[in-house]
């Protein structure tokens, strides 16, 4: 109690030096909590888009399908199993056929993935209604990034070349009927969406699909050896890994900032210990044991962390709450980052995040305050009183 009182009075007595340290530490608190809050919010918000527009309740993949092997695409198709067909009829599953094709935008050859989807399906929330047409012209929907990259506009006519299942090349003209504004880059870049029945006809693969998206109401996935089920966890792993990688990158930033703040506290305490040698000697002469003196200086340093919590609360809580309420606007250029960013990203602050950050910084500040204080133990009272 004496140590606490003396430490507090010393701290307040140090004036501007204390408040500068406290200010820097409070900034670190707010920055770490805000930044980690962004990452906390990123996963549920990006995965919500991916679930809504790409994976729904999970996907049954044809056994040969590998999204990372373009050469496997041509062999990744099969007749939709009857049990899944029943779900498709009830609109609780949506088959997608994927084939390789080639387009020639502005006279340049460009490989694309042709994705056939039933325009009437409601399992995925993507704007495919305009693919439902009686016109003989092949309707095509392109994603925003794909359109932007190739200069596509609604009404543009594209020549598409593909190979049917027998290996025979064929070509047709198609018309862009929709530019899809999606936040999920994996259903956008390098692909064109066309009606499923048209792609099945073009590839001579009637009733076949590459994957079947299960509705979000799926309870127990069907056990189909030819069509292994991939759950949400599996399909969202890329996002999880990417956020994890970004979070690790963020830690380096915190480490540097924290290091600088701790250096300031350490410096202050080293200075205090050597500038206040006589005071230390006096405390010893008055009967304070060495551990008591160490406690004074360690608590004094640790109090920087506590005062910083108070200061961070003063200006940090309004900032953090405001950004959690209003969200952080994500520029459309962020669509190219490979993550399904929402228009506004809302940070999420958990008690663990706040408590953990405070605990880590408090611990670090206490340790760096203890280190110079420990030097006192090596001094004789007569030496420090001199």
């Amino acid at each position, binding site marked *: 109690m*004496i140590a606490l009182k*003396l430490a507090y*009075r*010393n701290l*307040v*007595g140090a004036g501007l030096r204390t408040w500068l340290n406290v200010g820097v530490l409070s900034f670190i608190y707010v920055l770490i909590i805000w930044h980690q809050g962004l990452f906390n919010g990123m996963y549920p918000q990006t995965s919500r888009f991916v679930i809504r527009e790409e994976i729904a309740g999970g996907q049954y993949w044809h056994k040969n399908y590998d999204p990372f092997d373009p050469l496997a695409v041509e062999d990744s198709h099969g007749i939709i199993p009857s049990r899944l067909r029943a779900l498709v009829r009830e609109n609780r599953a949506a088959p997608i056929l994927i084939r390789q094709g080639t387009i020639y935008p502005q006279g340049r050859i460009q490989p694309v993935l042709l994705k056939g989807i039933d325009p009437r399906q409601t399992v995925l929330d993507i704007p495919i209604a305009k693919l439902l047409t009686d016109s003989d012209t092949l309707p095509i929907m392109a994603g925003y990034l794909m359109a932007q990259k190739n200069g596509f506009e609604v009404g543009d006519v594209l020549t598409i070349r593909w190979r049917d299942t027998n290996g025979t090349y064929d070509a047709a003209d198609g018309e862009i009927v929709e530019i899809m504004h999606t936040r999920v880059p994996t259903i956008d870049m390098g692909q064109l969406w066309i009606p499923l029945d048209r792609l099945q006809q073009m590839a001579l693969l009637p009733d076949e699909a590459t994957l079947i998206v299960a509705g979000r109401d799926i309870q127990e996935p069907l056990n189909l050896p030819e069509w292994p089920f991939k759950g949400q966890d599996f399909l969202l792993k890329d996002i999880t890994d990417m956020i994890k990688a970004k979070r690790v990158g963020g830690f380096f930033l915190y480490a540097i900032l924290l290091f600088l703040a701790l250096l300031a506290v350490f410096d202050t305490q080293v200075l205090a210990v050597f500038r206040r040698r*006589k*005071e230390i*000697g*006096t405390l*010893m*002469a*008055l*009967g*304070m*044991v*060495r551990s008591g003196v160490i406690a004074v200086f360690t608590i004094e340093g640790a109090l920087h962390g506590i005062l910083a919590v108070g200061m961070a609360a003063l200006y940090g809580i309004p900032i953090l709450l405001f950004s959690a309420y209003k969200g952080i606007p994500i520029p459309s250029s962020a669509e190219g980052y490979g993550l399904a960013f929402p228009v506004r990203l809302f940070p999420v602050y958990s008690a663990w995040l706040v408590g953990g950050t405070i605990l880590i910084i408090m611990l670090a500040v206490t340790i760096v305050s203890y280190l110079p204080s420990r030097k006192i133990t090596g001094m*004789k*009272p*007569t030496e420090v*009183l001199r």
Partner: protein
Amino acid sequence: MKNNQIISIENVIKRFPMGKGEFTALDGVDLTFGKGEFAGFVGPSGSGKTTLLNVIGSLDTPTQGKATVLGQSVGDLSEKNAARLRNEHLGFIFQTYNLLPVYTVFENVEFPLLLLKMPAADRGKAVLDALEWVGLSDKEKSKPAQLSGGECQRVAIARAMVKKPKIVLADEPTANLDAKNSHRILQTMETLNAELQTTFLFATHDDKVIRYLHRKITLEDGRVAGDEV
């Protein structure tokens, strides 16, 4: 411990490392002090006055010989026990006052009692009494920076006396004070010595202090060169 004897110095030698050799600050000092003495070590700089005071105050230990204070051998005390001895029975007055700058006068005087874990009510009364002894009752809320040198030293005396220690050790207590303040402080200490039977030991080469001493021990090169009552 002989009747009334509270400090016994037996053939105490204190050496400090100096360069490759050693410096002998105390060279076979033999002294005893009884309860209520008002004594001082006098002599030129480097004669061993402060070193002897430090040994008696358990701030330092003898290299050889035995220093017994209130029945406890200073050289054998652990750091904790030495701190306890200082806390419970010894008061220190320094040349430069050594007040805690962030504390008020009241809190500075109260500090030794906090270390003694004295109840708050008793503490408050003891502090006010001590401030009255030194005539600073009206300054209890002031900070040391707001006081004159003489007032600071009187606060230091109050801090040393507040726990009514058996021994007060004063190292050049008037070195930074003018004649008027020096006399005032010495008179205060003399009064406290008479009223509370506290033993006062000084280290000084100030004539003003020397005139007040009831016993003058002259040190030269770490040896006792004279002991006059």
